[in-house]
């Protein structure tokens, strides 16, 4: 597959800016280290040449940013979308969250993002630089340069990538990929196979780490409510802090439920969690159940598709059958 480089993206942006097709570019800006990449709106090529980056840490899914960005100007904004980002893009369009006319979407191929915490597990602290490639070169303060196979440090969501295909774009760079047979439900199945007590212990342990920073909600492209129920003082459940294990469970169950059928499994929630709670396992449970109960459905695959929870058939299974499926 032809590799799309940073220079190619800058060239593309520069051409579109020059043509006047767009006047802003939503892209990734470099930071202090190789891995702390920030979303940023560039307005000129010079600043892009200086600060724009594209590489193993260009995680940020820009779809949600479009809601705010498209309201700022009458002109189009250029956005680079990785395959998984295009699903969120479509899902937001389905929910009429931004004006498609104000976006010029360029699909870019992706060969997976790297999870810096996995690198740290191997090399420890003190990462000075990270050089991309199939073999990633990591320089640290204490150990000199080490080479790590990229596949060993891929982010969880990329290990279980569901699709390399772009489902939305105005223009595509590089080659189109395909929808993949991922193993993304394996972890869910493993949990399902446990006893209820084991599952309870597992989630109790995971969710007890929650600090209710709301990062999972705030980054989630499906969480676009103007006023979240957990941020509404009149809801009776507004709570800034995880007061106890009930609050933690309620927050995460309800959040997962609110995005059920709309979650595109982009994996941002798990990435941003400061406590590394595998939140994607909650969302994937819903996706897996929806597929099993109501037929395969991929949120965001198609603009305008009717989400499973706003749909029904007369023959749907009963709730009692849903929980006793294994026994039947």
């Amino acid at each position, binding site marked *: 597959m032809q590799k799309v480089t940073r220079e190619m993206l800058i060239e593309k942006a520069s051409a579109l800016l020059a043509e006047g097709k767009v006047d802003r570019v939503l892209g990734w800006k470099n930071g202090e280290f190789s891995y702390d990449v920030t979303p940023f709106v560039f307005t000129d090529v010079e600043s892009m040449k200086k600060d724009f980056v594209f590489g193993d840490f260009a995680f940020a899914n820009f779809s949600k940013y479009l809601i705010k960005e498209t309201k700022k100007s009458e002109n189009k904004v250029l956005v680079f979308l990785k395959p998984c980002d295009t699903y969120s893009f479509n899902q937001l369009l389905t929910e009429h969250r931004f004006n498609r006319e104000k976006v010029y979407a360029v699909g870019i191929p992706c060969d997976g993002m790297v999870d810096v915490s996995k690198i740290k597990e191997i090399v420890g602290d003190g990462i000075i630089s990270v050089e991309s490639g199939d073999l990633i070169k990591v320089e640290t303060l204490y150990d000199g340069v080490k080479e790590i196979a990229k596949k060993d440090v891929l982010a969880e969501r990329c290990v279980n990538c569901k699709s390399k295909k772009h489902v939305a774009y105005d223009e595509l760079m590089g080659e189109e990929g395909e929808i993949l047979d991922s193993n993304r439900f394996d972890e869910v199945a493993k949990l399902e196979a446990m006893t209820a007590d084991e599952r309870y212990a597992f989630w109790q342990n995971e969710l007890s780490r929650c600090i209710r920073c709301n990062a999972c909600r705030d980054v989630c492209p499906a969480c676009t409510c103007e006023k979240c129920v957990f941020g509404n003082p009149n809801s009776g459940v507004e709570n800034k802090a995880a007061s106890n294990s009930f609050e933690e469970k309620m927050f995460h169950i309800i959040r997962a439920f609110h995005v059920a059928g709309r979650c595109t499994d982009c994996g941002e929630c798990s990435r941003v969690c400061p406590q590394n709670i595998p939140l994607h396992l909650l969302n994937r449970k819903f996706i897996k159940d929806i597929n099993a109960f109501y037929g395969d459905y991929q949120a965001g695959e198609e603009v305008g598709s009717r989400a499973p929870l*706003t749909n029904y058939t007369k023959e749907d299974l009963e709730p009692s059958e849903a929980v006793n499926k294994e026994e039947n």
Partner: protein
Amino acid sequence: MQVNEYKPKIVAFCCNWCSYAGADLAGSNRLAYPAEVKVIRVPCSCRVNPMFILRAFQRGADGVIICGCHPGDCHYTSGNYYTRRRMALLFSMLDYLGIEKERTRVEWVSAAEGAKFAATMNDFVQTVTALGENKRLEDLRCKK
């Protein structure tokens, strides 16, 4: 010394058009069902938000049951079809989190089914009694 017999607290969300009338009928026919069942009338079973169920558990419920019109009979045409999907997913999620699946239930009870209402409640109370107190979705702050 007499040991206090454990009596579970049950919250039953009943749709206004069928199940609540069913509960009424059970009453007027003098069909007994346990007093531990606290009925909350809702306009339609699909009014029941997952948060209602969790909050009932938080406030000390040991079991939550949702009763609505039989599929196809919804006063609002399709409300209970949505309930069916939502609750199927929610209950499956609760089970996934290791919360006893017997604590939640959906039953379709028509206005004519007073006997079914009483029988359902009796059965549900029995099931929850066997499970004992809700420990996994409790909020310790609400304990007396």
